């Protein structure tokens, strides 16, 4: 009954929000198709990629919208699946050896479902410790099976890192539903919407600002596409967007802007860190699952870094 009241109370805001997202995507689609029509004589790679990216955004928005409509369980299941795809991409591209089989088995089939089950039953103490402490201790023990010492520390570090980024960090997105904020009961799904919309817009706006007026590369060794102009313009405009979305959050406009700034900066650095790993491995994208974007991790690198910080800031000051 409470769930139902909560659902009904929150739907006007969520409907408004998704209508807004649909409008933005519609405008983007019109612009991209117009660009494609304009360049029809000399088809360009950039425009083709833009069109593919926007199509993928429609799919992603619809999938998140469906999970949103189902509610808490839908979100937890969605992000568990996203974690699985992300971890699969990460482990695929970070070579391990045969003797890591049991550690990987435990990572995929034990740590991942257990983490999301703990989020589901709302056992905060354990989902905060499961991967940083217990998986951290168990996985290297499993990697000793077979007595293979070749690159032992490197291998165990890779598996642990993959779990932290792809499972621990991403699980903090649905964990936002568990926060009991006085006066905000039953509306926590909108916190997820705030986080995802602000951080993803920051990525998109950095891309747009970069394409429009980007000149100086901000970290040429780490990323060939991130520019100073893109960074400043993207973070500033996504922060303004966060402030403008204060009405779906328990924050004042100023607080919303401050939190948006923090998660945008975390997201930016998340992109840089994941980019550094890709450069080191000699690859451009983590995978091929999302047309035009690359893999799941290419799309979520910023959310991975922003989610736990967003979660703990709210938990410390608003709960």
């Amino acid at each position, binding site marked *: 009954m409470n769930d139902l009241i909560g659902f009904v109370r929150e739907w006007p805001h969520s409907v408004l929000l998704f209508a807004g997202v649909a409008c933005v995507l519609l405008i983007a689609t019109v612009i991209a198709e117009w660009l494609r029509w304009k360049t029809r004589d000399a088809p360009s790679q950039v425009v083709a990629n833009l069109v593919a990216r926007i199509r993928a955004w429609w799919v992603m928005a619809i999938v998140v919208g469906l999970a949103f409509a189902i509610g808490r369980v839908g979100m937890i299941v969605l992000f568990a699946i996203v974690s699985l795809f992300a971890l699969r991409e990460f*482990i695929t591209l970070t070579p391990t050896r*045969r003797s890591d*089989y049991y550690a990987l088995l435990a990572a995929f089939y034990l740590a991942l479902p257990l983490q999301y089950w703990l989020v589901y039953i709302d056992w905060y103490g354990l989902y905060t410790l499961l991967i940083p402490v217990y998986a951290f201790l168990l996985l290297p023990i499993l990697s000793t099976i077979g007595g293979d010492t070749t690159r032992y520390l490197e291998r165990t570090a890779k598996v642990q890192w993959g779990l932290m980024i792809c499972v621990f960090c991403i699980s903090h997105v649905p964990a936002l539903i568990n926060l009991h904020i006085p006066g905000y009961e039953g509306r926590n799904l909108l916190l997820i919407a705030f986080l995802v919309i602000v951080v993803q817009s920051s990525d998109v706006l950095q891309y747009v600002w970069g394409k429009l007026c980007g000149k100086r590369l901000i970290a040429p060794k780490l990323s060939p596409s991130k520019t100073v102009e893109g960074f400043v313009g993207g973070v500033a405009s996504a922060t303004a967007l966060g402030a403008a979305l204060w009405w779906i959050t328990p924050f004042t406009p100023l607080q919303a802007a401050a939190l948006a700034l923090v998660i945008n900066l975390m997201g930016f650095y998340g992109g840089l860190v994941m980019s550094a790993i890709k450069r080191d491995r000699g690859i451009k994208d983590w995978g091929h699952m999302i047309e035009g974007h690359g893999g799941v991790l290419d799309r979520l690198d910023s959310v991975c870094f922003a989610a736990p910080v967003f979660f703990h800031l709210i938990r410390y000051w608003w709960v």
Partner: protein
Amino acid sequence: MISNLLASSFSGAIRALTGARALWRCSPSSDHRVYYGNHVSHGDFVMIWSALPPALRRQVRPVAGADYWQRDALRRYLIREVFNGVLIERDPAQRKQDAIETLCDAVDGGNSLILFPEGTRNQGDEPLLPFKSGLYHLAHCRPELEFVPVWIDNLARVMPKGKVLPLPLLCTATFGETLRLRADEDKQAFLDRARNALLALSEHGSAPAAGNAANISHGAAE
């Protein structure tokens, strides 16, 4: 009916688990072809099969070792009814029909083949074992056949030898450019050319194989 369903579920499972991504350097075609690949796991031919366009799948038959696949009723059922395999006897002493003749019959019957010229699963550190001569003899008997190298990447990590539960990791099958036996080509030259064409694909797969990365990933591929 049931065997078709089973075939689709094997192929569906491997696609769900590994993505079974296909990269084509030649164009997919229903011409009679021999797809030859590196052999690291039992999933290999299901992988190649799943990466092929559905319209081509039914006429592509894997070549499998009779000694292994006739060991019990379940394997006999799977290889005959589900995978529609062409069985050849690997041990010459056991042979009733010449292996190359068996393959030629299958080709003449309108099928394409999946073949693993290493002859056995590669469990070592070498990326590719020396080829058995069967590939050459087949090319010699049917010179019009096109040979397509297929490099399967990462599948050995999905299910290492002797393990039961597969790991979900992304795999890529890279289909290289077709090659044919040249008029004046001798056995060793053809086998070397075919083997090098396959090895060349390994460096362009999804997993990088340069420097340190090569050492560690080949360690995984044992």
